């Protein structure tokens, strides 16, 4: 493999000095002076209600109030994959916290006062508060649901069957949606993803051991430390400029164009640094709310910064899930059949969530080869907060069940759980759940790496005190980027007079280090030092198109666009250099800002001497060097609507394994995660320190979701919308982390072999901890989180049983 000079090195983050000095600007930091107005949003107190009347007359009289808008001002439906929502509620409200009206005023106090004075008359409607009963839709449809949805959940403690007769979206069938999304009109099912591989009956007939369980996960919140914020300004010519804390500048522009019938050329989205995303700032969240206010107030800057409570209630949450998994293996330990029913609690609007249902469906085997599969994955409307993308996009959710099924099966078969996984792992050429061949399937490498590192199979150290129980658990994972098959990236590289370069992309720096990673890719190809290349933050008027910064796809997809742009710029430099030096371009190389023939490095030209062209005696040649690059992943195919079968639903797959060492306090049920050993295969590492940082952050986020994160919803009302009652991990909660990064299978179409890493890092943590709890205590918990209360209750129950 070629020696890299910049790639694979832990070069300092491009944004580090900005961020340690306080110079880094986030949306709320931008100063707009006297033209600044403050927006506040009136939100629904009801989980489901018809809006009968809205009276804003009193509110409008509050001194300082400049404008009030409601659903009347923006009636167009928008959505990323399914256009099912309006910017403000129109006919109905469908979750507590849904925007009903917006106020712009010259102070926050005046805006708050006005919000209180808006009178809304509601007719409360029955609500749908769990996805299983919600999936049934109207009573009359019960008998029309597929036989597989027979009332298997009756009597299970985790399910309530309240209010089965309520429809959330009466016009579901009229909503426009992406061709690979399949709503079921007349129900609350906004996407039904079906997968049929092999012969499920023959599969189970061949099974010697069958394990069936229902696994549940609650809603959790991304809890980025920066609350969502947006500022809109409309100039006298009607041009909209939006400063947004967003992962998706181009998607924001597109959806706002649709919502307000504007040409995209009249919308400019500027995204400064984003204080954490994790999916919660993808698509459109609060950005559109300020636009109609700004449209009424030309010249003013209308700013909305969400409160922490609003972030918890009114931005995307991770969807809840009820997963019934029935898994069969033969006595040699081979997986032979899987039946999966996945009920995703999509919340009130599932414009984004429908695609999570699809990913969860076509990945429902987990990283294992299973010849016979029947999966039904339902995205279900409920009167809960809006479900959306969150780190892992369905994978932490489905692996929660899959990885416990593996342990349970292994135990029944008397096989070591690691060996059982290794035996069934997807390998090169294995057929995935979707029927196509897996490429670059490196799960076994990560299993072996973790096993060696943590000493799997050896003795587990004894507990620190007598009342503590020590355990060790393993979980594996795979994940592909979930995106439309044609998700595009593009890049422009401008060479400057001094031989430095600017890279223009609309890839978003959300903390993952994209500025630095993309600079390293460009610098490597252009033969420049990493610090000579600067990647700019997005401004859709000036930076070229990027679909979204999601799906762990930026290093791969935007990286490919940047690499193509760098090659283009390099070709231009070499063409001029070839003429100046009278040496064929093919004999020239660029390194450290110098262009020279390999055979005679002394005969060199500086990049800075030709970046703007070159003046030869016979006249000028070349010109300012501008490289352009674009990328769409090749060969991604659709999946059959009835069988979910196809060749290649995603660009690449990242594999990983984690082992958790834990202690359970038998007196309190409290779990302490002592150590997590993790291995990921990432194709090619761009920046080892940043890559490792992703794994550290993902493990700790996974730990939070495992032990305590749970947005408590009672009849649709969130009860813990702050950091006191919704606990996320603090520094004292972090385990020792032993991290292994492998480069065994460079991605053929990844820049320098790169695969994505950011999301996979949190996927296996929760099931690894659950498996460790079982190892320690013999107690198996199927619903997240593994709270001390729940563990203690389970321990007591087990004790009672044994006595």
């Amino acid at each position: 493999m070629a020696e890299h000079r910049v790639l694979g090195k832990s070069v300092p983050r491009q944004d580090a000095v900005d961020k340690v000095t306080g110079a880094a600007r986030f949306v709320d930091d931008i100063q707009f002076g006297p033209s600044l107005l403050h927006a506040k949003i009136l939100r629904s107190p009801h989980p489901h209600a018809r809006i009968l009347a809205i009276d804003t007359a009193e509110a409008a009289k509050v001194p300082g109030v400049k404008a009030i808008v409601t659903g009347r001002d923006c009636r167009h439906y928008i959505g990323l994959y399914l256009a099912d929502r309006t910017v403000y509620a129109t006919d109905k409200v469908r979750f507590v916290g849904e925007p009903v009206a917006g106020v712009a005023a010259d102070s926050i106090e005046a805006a708050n006062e006005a919000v209180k004075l808006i009178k809304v008359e509601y007719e409360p409607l029955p609500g749908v508060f769990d996805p299983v009963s919600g999936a049934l839709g109207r009573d009359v449809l019960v008998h029309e649901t597929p036989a597989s949805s027979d009332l298997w959940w009756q009597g299970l403690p985790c399910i309530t069957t309240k209010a089965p007769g309520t429809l959330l979206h009466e016009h579901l069938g009229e909503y426009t949606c992406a061709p690979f999304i399949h709503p079921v009109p007349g129900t609350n099912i906004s996407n039904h993803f079906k997968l049929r591989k092999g012969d499920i009956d023959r599969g189970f007939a061949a099974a010697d051991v069958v394990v069936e369980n229902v696994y549940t996960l609650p809603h959790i919140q991304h809890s980025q430390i920066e609350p969502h914020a947006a500022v809109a300004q409309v100039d006298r010519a009607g041009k909209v400029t939006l400063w947004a804390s967003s992962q998706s500048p181009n998607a924001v522009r597109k959806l706002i164009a649709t919502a307000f019938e504007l040409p995209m050329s009249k919308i400019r989205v500027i995204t400064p640094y984003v204080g954490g995303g994790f999916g919660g700032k993808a698509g459109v969240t609060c950005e559109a709310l300020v636009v109609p206010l700004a449209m009424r107030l030309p010249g003013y800057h209308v700013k909305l910064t969400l409160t922490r409570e609003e972030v918890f209630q009114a931005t995307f949450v991770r969807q809840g899930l009820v997963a019934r998994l029935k898994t069969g293996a033969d006595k040699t330990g081979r997986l032979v059949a899987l039946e999966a029913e996945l009920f995703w609690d999509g919340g009130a609007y599932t414009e984004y969530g429908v695609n999570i249902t699809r990913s969860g469906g076509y990945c429902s085997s987990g990283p294992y080869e299973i010849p016979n599969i029947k999966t039904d994955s339902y995205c279900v409307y409920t009167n809960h907060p809006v479900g959306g993308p969150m780190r892992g996009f369905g994978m932490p959710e489905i692996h929660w069940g899959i990885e416990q099924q593996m342990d349970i099966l292994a135990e029944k078969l008397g096989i070591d759980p690691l060996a059982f996984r290794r035996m069934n792992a997807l390998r090169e050429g294995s057929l995935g759940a979707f029927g196509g061949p897996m490429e670059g399937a490196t799960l076994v490498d990560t299993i072996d790496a973790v096993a060696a590192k943590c000493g799997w199979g050896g003795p587990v150290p004894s507990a620190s005190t007598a009342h503590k129980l020590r355990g060790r658990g393993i979980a594996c994972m795979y994940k592909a980027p979930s995106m439309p098959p044609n998700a595009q990236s593009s890049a422009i590289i401008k060479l400057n007079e001094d031989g430095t370069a600017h890279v223009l992309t609309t890839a978003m720096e959300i903390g993952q280090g994209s500025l630095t990673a993309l600079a390293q890719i460009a610098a490597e190809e252009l033969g420049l030092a990493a610090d000579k290349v600067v990647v700019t933050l997005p401004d859709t008027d000036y930076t070229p198109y990027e679909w979204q910064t999601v799906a762990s796809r930026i290093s791969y997809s935007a990286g490919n666009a940047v690499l193509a742009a760098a090659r283009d710029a390099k070709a231009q430099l070499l063409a001029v250099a070839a003429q100046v030096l009278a040496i064929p371009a093919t004999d020239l190389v660029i390194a450290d800002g110098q262009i020279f023939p390999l055979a005679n490095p002394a005969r060199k030209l500086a990049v800075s001497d030709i970046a703007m062209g070159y003046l030869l005696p016979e006249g000028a040649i070349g010109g300012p060097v501008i490289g352009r690059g674009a990328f769409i992943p090749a060969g991604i195919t659709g999946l059959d609507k009835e069988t979910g079968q196809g060749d290649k639903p995603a660009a690449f797959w990242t594999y990983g394994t984690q082992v958790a060492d834990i202690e359970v306090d038998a007196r309190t049920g409290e779990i302490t995660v002592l150590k997590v050993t993790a291995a990921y295969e990432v194709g090619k590492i761009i920046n080892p320190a940043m890559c490792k940082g992703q794994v550290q952050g993902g493990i700790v986020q996974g730990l939070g979701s495992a032990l305590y994160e749970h947005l408590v919803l009672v009849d649709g009302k969130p009860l813990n919308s702050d950091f006191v009652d919704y606990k996320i991990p603090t520094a004292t909660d972090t385990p020792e982390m032993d991290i292994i990064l492998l480069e065994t299978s460079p991605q053929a179409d990844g820049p320098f072999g790169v695969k994505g890493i950011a999301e996979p890092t949190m996927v296996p943590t929760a099931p690894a901890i659950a498996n460790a709890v079982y190892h320690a205590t013999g107690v198996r918990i199927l619903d997240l989180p593994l709270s001390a209360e729940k563990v203690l209750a389970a321990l007591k129950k087990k004790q009672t049983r044994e006595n």
Partner: protein
Amino acid sequence: MKTVTLTVNGQSEKLTLAPHRTLLDILREDLGLTGAKRGCEAGECGACTVILNGKPVNSCLVLAVELDGAEVLTVEGLGGPEGLDPLQQAFVDNFALQCGYCTPGMILMGKALLAQNPRPSEAEVKEFISGNLCRCTGYENIVKAIMAVAAGGERHG
């Protein structure tokens, strides 16, 4: 309205303030010092941490009118790009930040700890910064950065 005089990053500031405004408000809005971040405005996340009279505080919980005669240090009062404070440099060197939103508060928390306990143990560092939430890094590199300055003495200076 009340007039107070306080010192912010060594500069004397005379401000006339409405009584309900917080130190965080006036730093960000009146003085343009946006290094202290709004995360929760309830003292739960630590993103707005500044050092007030030598002690770290959540500036969202401090009413500005209480501050007559006070001394405030914000991240802007540490080194600039040309001469980073050793702890800022350690954050850069140890990749102790990702999105950067908690970073100013974390750095000031680290400064406060090292001022009162120049040789903390790793457990002491974790305990001390446990009121400052970070959702990106998993804290390991933050702890490492603080320990690097603690253990390294003048090495970074």
